[in-house]
């Protein structure tokens, strides 16, 4: 575990996850620091995405899954029966691998979450939409065509729109599942710069297959293998001198 420098935002303790009889995650304990970027790396099927999706209960919709252990946000276990999942997902937002704007206008995409959460005041909505688009570094590119369809934006713009949509409801944590894997290098660079800016106000957790990306954007890195958390430490340490041989073998491509 890294030596925390910031307050702890999210804590998991002995968290295990099952798809039916298949155990996808084994006893994951991790402290995620506030205003830091935490990267999850590991080979396909290692459980990193399952773990990410467990942090805002995205896996709930998959039938036959169950969890053990705890995920504590503000001291409350998000798997408690009385937790409002819609409210949880406001606090813990998510951006997916494939940008998924709604077939609506740019404005309505960002305003969507606000309206769901009961914001009816048009000027308040407009203000928050602008703030969110600015925070997602998209405002200057779209401010003159907010009423145009989001589907007409480029891939990189669509992904930043999805980030703006996630930010609009003022989350505490933003989960990103391979947010740049479908983007070209320039659009990827924009997303990475954006992540760096966003950590001032948010806690970011990112899953990426691109190890150089994890090295560039994150402060701490967690390496998962076969559903276990093998090593979790400062990113600088993981990529220059990891403690575990498995981590070393994975990041230097000597695996298997």
């Amino acid at each position, binding site marked *: 575990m890294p030596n925390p420098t910031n307050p702890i935002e999210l804590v998991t303790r002995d968290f295990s996850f099952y798809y039916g009889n298949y155990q996808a995650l084994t006893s994951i304990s991790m402290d995620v620091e506030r205003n830091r970027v935490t990267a999850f790396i590991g080979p396909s099927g290692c459980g990193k995405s399952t773990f990410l999706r467990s942090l805002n209960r995205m896996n709930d919709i998959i039938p036959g899954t169950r969890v053990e252990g705890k995920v504590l946000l503000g001291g409350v276990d998000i798997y408690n029966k009385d937790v409002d999942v819609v409210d949880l997902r406001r606090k813990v937002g998510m951006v997916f691998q494939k940008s998924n704007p709604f077939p609506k206008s740019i404005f309505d995409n960002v305003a969507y979450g606000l309206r769901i959460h009961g914001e009816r005041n048009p000027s308040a909505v407009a203000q928050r939409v602008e703030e969110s688009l600015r925070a997602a570094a998209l405002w200057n590119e779209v401010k003159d065509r907010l009423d145009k369809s989001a589907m007409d934006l480029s891939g990189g713009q669509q992904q930043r729109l999805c980030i703006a949509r996630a930010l609009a409801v003022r989350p505490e944590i933003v989960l990103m599942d391979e947010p740049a894997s479908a983007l070209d290098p320039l659009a990827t660079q924009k997303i990475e710069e954006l992540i760096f800016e966003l950590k001032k106000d948010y806690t970011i957790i990112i899953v990426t297959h691109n190890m150089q990306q994890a090295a560039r954007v994150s402060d701490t890195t967690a390496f998962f293998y076969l559903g276990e958390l093998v090593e979790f430490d400062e990113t600088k340490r993981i*990529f220059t001198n990891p403690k575990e041989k498995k981590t070393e073998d994975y990041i230097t*491509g000597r695996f298997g």
Partner: protein
Amino acid sequence: MERHFHEQLQELKKKLTTMSRSVEESIEKSIRSFMLRDAGLADEVFRMDDVINRMEMDIDDDCLKLLALQQPLAADLRFIMAAMKINNDLERMGDHSVNIAGYAKSLIGTEAVPPINRIPAMAKIALGMVSESLAAFVEGDADRARLVCLKDDEVDAMDDAIFKEVLRLPHPGPESVSRSLALVLASKNIERIADLSTNIAEEVIFIVQARTIKHHSELSVIEDRRAR
């Protein structure tokens, strides 16, 4: 399956080994030219230096390409960083043997002074350190590298002894001063070769254990070993 990249790292290691053999040969020739006052041997050292310099540039180029194209991490990254430094250290050793060959030429036709007899023993230890540091590099053996660092004091003491002995010599005229200077400077160059081999040993420890021991940051560990 071995990655192509890791084969390239092995290739880099081989090139450094080849270079180190040339450097050792050049040092050895420079010492012989110095002891025998042999201009032919000194000229061979000068020629070898061109070859060593070309090897250095070639290895630099390989390292740059590997960094840019493979974006190495962890042990691989440490290996390439260390290889660049070892490359530089070996090239410097080549320069020191050129210096020694130059002093050899300046001594031709002059009479030998007694402290010169200390040079072969000193050079033997320094050459042993060079080959041991390279062997430690090839084997990835941090313990072997540490032993190289311990040898450095012996060479320093011998260099010191030569200097003190030269000070006690009578220096009736400019020729005797220049003869003594050549000896002192040759000794100093051998001492630097030994220093550079401890640099290589330190790089080996960095590759293997990701620890920096240079500039005496781990002196206590070395001293503990010496006490045993």
